[in-house]
């Protein structure tokens, strides 16, 4: 199972091991961790919630998109749910490819897509309150307030 939602802490090495292949010269990993400060505001902890069966399907879809775009790629993604403290790991993405440029690009594609189409939400808890965080994409704007059809099923 290369695509998982996990209630337990993520073992990074276990995710990496899923993409090891004799044809690969490069493995990239992205590890998303809980950051203490965002725009100067201090986070105490986060809670992640997922629509689990759909989230797994969407992670699989991202994996298939990557295999279509980058020949010879292997992909594994695990996303955590539940309460996470500062420096805890929220997501691990591992991608292996024959050549290194592809491994970087495919990995970056994976995290952008996760932030577009995978039904997972985080609630930030600060000293003075809490809030479900909406779309936080740093690179894509949705003028209509939601992803377009082309974004969802690309």
């Amino acid at each position, binding site marked *: 199972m290369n695509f998982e939602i996990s209630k337990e802490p993520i073992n990074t090495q276990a995710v990496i091991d899923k993409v090891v292949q004799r044809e690969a010269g490069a493995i990239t990993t992205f590890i*998303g961790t809980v950051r203490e400060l965002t725009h100067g505001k201090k986070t105490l902890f986060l809670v*992640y*919630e*997922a*629509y689990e*069966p*759909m*989230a797994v*399907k969407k992670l699989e879809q991202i994996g298939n998109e990557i295999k279509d775009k980058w020949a010879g790629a292997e992909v594994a993604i695990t*996303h955590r749910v539940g309460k996470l403290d500062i420096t805890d790991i*929220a*997501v691990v993405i591992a991608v292996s490819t024959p050549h290194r440029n592809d491994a970087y690009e495919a990995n970056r594609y994976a*995290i952008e897509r*996760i*932030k*577009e*189409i*995978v*039904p*997972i*939400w*985080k*609630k930030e808890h600060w000293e003075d309150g809490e809030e*479900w*965080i*909406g*779309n*936080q994409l740093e690179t894509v704007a949705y003028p209509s*307030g*939601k*992803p377009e*059809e082309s974004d*969802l*099923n690309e």
Partner: protein
Amino acid sequence: MNKIMLFAHLRDEAGAEYIELQAEGKTVADVKELIAEKYNLTKLDSTMSAINEEFAEDDEVIQKGDIIAFIPPVSGG
């Protein structure tokens, strides 16, 4: 009956993880409007929808047994 899954702020507002509802023959938009009113749900204009774990358009018609989900802007990763 159809199961309507709620997440994030919608779940908090409704005080429930899901609602059971006779939605057969209704569109996604119909159901959205219906439960928005009943549970005082907010920000539904930026909420996506899914039928049976696939994103669905507002005008899609719900079939018997379909599982609907209302999906606020996601924030994983």
